[in-house]
C-alpha cells in the first residue's frame, strides 16, 4: 500500500466511495442470485479503488463515460443509490425510468454521461465531452473508463489519437482487470502493459496499482491537472482484478467450465482494495474503527433502503415507451 500524506478527510472520502460501491454491488449480486434482477449484471467488486480514486480527483462538473461494468463509476461520481437500484429493477423511479438498466445508467446532473453495453463505446463520447469543455473554454475534464478488452477495439485507438491531436482534456482510464470476459488480457494482446500504447499517441502512459486507492488518486489527480491546464490527455492504466466473474450467474451459465487459475483468484482476494484501505486506515490510526463501522452500517442501511425504494417503486407505464423520443 502506498504510504500517503493525504489528509485523512481525503482518505475517508476515498474509503467512503469504495465502500458505497462494495456494499451496493454485494447487494446487487445477492438480488441477482435470487432472480430479482432482469438482464445482464456485471459487478465492480474488486475494482473499487479505480473508480473511487479517479472520481475523487474530479469535480462535480467534470464528465465521465463508463462501461457495461458501470455501477461503480456512477457511485464513485456521486450517484444516488435509490435511482440506481430502481433502474436495476427496471422501475419508473430509476435513473433512466427503467429504459436503461444495468448497462445503461447515466446521471447527467453529475456529469455521468452513461454506461455502455458496447465495449469501447464510451471513449469517443468522452472525447467529445472533452472537446466541448475545451471549446466552451471551461476547465472541465472528461474521463473515459474502459477495460483491457476495450483497449483492443478500434474506438480506443481513434479516440486516444483524436484527443491527443486536438489536445483535449480527456483522461483515458483503462481498468485492466486481466480479463475480457473469459479471455485473459495477455491472450488478446502481445504486450503486458496497455499503458505502453500511449507512446503511439504522444501522450503519457501511466501504470498504477488499481487495487490501491492511495496510488490511484494521486495518479489520477496528476492526469486531471495536466488536462485542466490544457496539456492534453493521459492514458492511465490501473492494474486490478475483478473479485467475481465476468457477469453474475456465469458459473451456471458456463456449466462448470473454469477459466481462472486458483492462484489468480487468491491473488485477487489478497489485494482486495476495500480491505486494503480499511487495514491501512486502521493501522495508521487515521480513523477510529467504530467510526468506520458506523459508516459501513450507514451505507448498508442506505443500500437496504434503496432496495426497498426500488421494490416499492412502480413499474413504468406502458405509455412511457413513447416518451423521451424526439425533442
Amino acid at each position, binding site marked *: 500500500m502506498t504510504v500517503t500524506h493525504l489528509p485523512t478527510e481525503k482518505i475517508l472520502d476515498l474509503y467512503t466511495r469504495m465502500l458505497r460501491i462494495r456494499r451496493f454491488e454485494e447487494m446487487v449480486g445477492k438480488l441477482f442470485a435470487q432472480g430479482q434482477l432482469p*438482464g445482464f449484471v456485471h459487478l465492480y467488486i474488486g475494482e473499487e479503488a479505480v473508480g473511487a480514486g479517479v472520481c475523487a480527483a474530479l469535480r462535480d462538473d467534470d464528465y465521465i463515460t463508463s462501461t457495461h461494468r458501470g455501477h461503480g463509476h456512477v457511485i464513485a461520481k456521486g450517484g444516488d443509490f435509490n435511482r440506481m437500484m430502481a433502474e436495476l429493477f427496471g422501475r419508473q423511479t430509476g435513473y*433512466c425510468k427503467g*429504459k436503461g438498466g444495468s448497462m445503461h445508467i447515466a446521471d447527467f446532473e453529475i456529469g455521468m454521461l452513461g454506461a455502455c453495453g458496447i465495449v469501447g463505446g464510451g471513449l469517443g463520447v468522452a472525447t467529445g465531452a472533452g472537446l466541448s469543455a475545451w471549446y466552451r473554454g471551461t476547465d472541465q475534464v472528461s474521463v473515459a473508463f474502459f477495460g483491457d478488452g476495450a483497449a483492443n*477495439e478500434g474506438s480506443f485507438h481513434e479516440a486516444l489519437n483524436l484527443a491527443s491531436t486536438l489536445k483535449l482534456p480527456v483522461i483515458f482510464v483503462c481498468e485492466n482487470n486481466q480479463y475480457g470476459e*473469459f479471455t485473459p488480457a495477455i*491472450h488478446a494482446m502481445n504486450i503486458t502493459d496497455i499503458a505502453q500504447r500511449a507512446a503511439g499517441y504522444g501522450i503519457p502512459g501511466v501504470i498504477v496499482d488499481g487495487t490501491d486507492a492511495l496510488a490511484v488518486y494521486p495518479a489520477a489527480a496528476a492526469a486531471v491537472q495536466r488536462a485542466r491546464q490544457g496539456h492534453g490527455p493521459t492514458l492511465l492504466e490501473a492494474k486490478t482484478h475483478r473479485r467475481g466473474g465476468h457477469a453474475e450467474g456465469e458459473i451456471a451459465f458456463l456449466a462448470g467450465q473454469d*477459466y481462472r487459475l486458483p492462484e489468480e483468484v487468491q491473488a485477487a482476494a489478497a489485494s482486495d482494495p476495500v480491505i486494503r484501505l480499511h487495514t491501512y486506515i486502521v493501522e495508521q490510526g487515521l480513523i477510529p474503527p467504530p467510526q468506520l463501522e458506523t459508516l459501513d452500517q450507514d451505507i448498508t442501511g442506505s443500500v437496504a433502503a434503496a432496495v426497498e425504494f426500488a421494490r416499492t417503486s412502480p413499474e*413504468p407505464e406502458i405509455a412511457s415507451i413513447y416518451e423521451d423520443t424526439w425533442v
Partner: protein
Amino acid sequence: MARKTYIAAINEALFEEMRRDPMVLLIGEDVRIGVFAGTRGLHKEFGDKRVLDTPISELAVAGAGVGAAATGLRPVVDLMFGTFLYLAFDQIANQAGAMRYMFGGQTRLPLVYMVQNGTGASAGHHHSQSVHQFFMNMPLIKVIMPATPYDVKGLLKAAIRDDNPVIFLNHLALGGQRGEVPDEEYLIPIGQGEIKRSGSHVTVCSVGLMVHHSLKAAKELEKEGIDVEVIDLRTLKPWDEALVLHSVAKTGRFVAVDEGHMVCGAASEWAATVAEKAFHDLKAPVKRVTSKPVPIPFSPKLEKAVVPSPEEIADAVRQVLGTRVPA
C-alpha cells in the same frame, strides 16, 4: 429423432461441418469456452488451430474472415450479438458483400458471420436490437434467421457450405427452445420458407421469435373461427417470395410480422412485395406489425410492450379480416 434445444442443434451443426471439411474454422470472441453456448466443446475436439479466440476487435475480425475466405478457408466468424456487427459494418458491406462483384468475379467468399439477434434478455438497447434488415439491404449478402432447432441445424450446415457470405442470426430468445432434430444428416436449402401452420383466411409472414408469436396468435384466433396460415421465411435474403405470393393468392389477406423496426424493415419489404405483385389477390390492405419506433428498453415490461405480441398479431389479423375496427 430426438428432441433437442436450438443451441444444441447449432452445436451439432458446427461439429458436423467442422468434421466434414477441414477448411472450416471458427474464429471469434470467447469461442473456445463458448460464451455463446452454440460453440461449446468445439475447442476440445478441434483444438487451438481451428477454434480461435480473438481480441475484441469486430472490424478486423470481420475483415480477417473475408481475407481467409478469399484465400481458401471457410470461416465461421462468431461476433456474439447482432449489434456488434455495427462495428464491422464496413467490412461486411464494402468487402464481404462487394468483393466478388467489384472484382469481376475473381473470388468467392464462403463465409458465415454468426450472431444472436433480437430481444429476449432484458439486456437493454445495446444487446437487444434486430439487425437483419440492414444486411437484407446489401445486395450480395445472404441473411438467415431460423426459428426452430430443426431449421437452425439444417440451415447453419447449408450456410457453412454456401460459397457466399452469410449473416447467420440465431434468435436470442430461442436458445432453449426444444424440437425434433433427426439423427441423420440433413440440409435445408437457403431461400426456402416453410408454412408452419397452414390456413385459409389470412397469410402471416414472419421469422425468428415472431414465428412463435404468430403461431400463438393463430391458435387464439382458431377459437374465433379464423384460420391463419403462418409462414416462416427462415431465410431473409434471398427470400421465398413465391411461397408468400402463393399463400396470398389463396388467402387474399396479408400480415407481415417482424421484430425489427418498421421503417425500411423486413415487414415493409414483404408488404411492399405483396402489394406490388399480388395486388389483385388482396381483399384487404396489407398490414405490418413490428416493434414500436423506439430503442429497445431494458424493463422487461417495456421490452415486451415494444416488441410485437401474439395479441397484437391477432389484432392485426382481425383487422385485415374486417372483424375488428382498427384503433
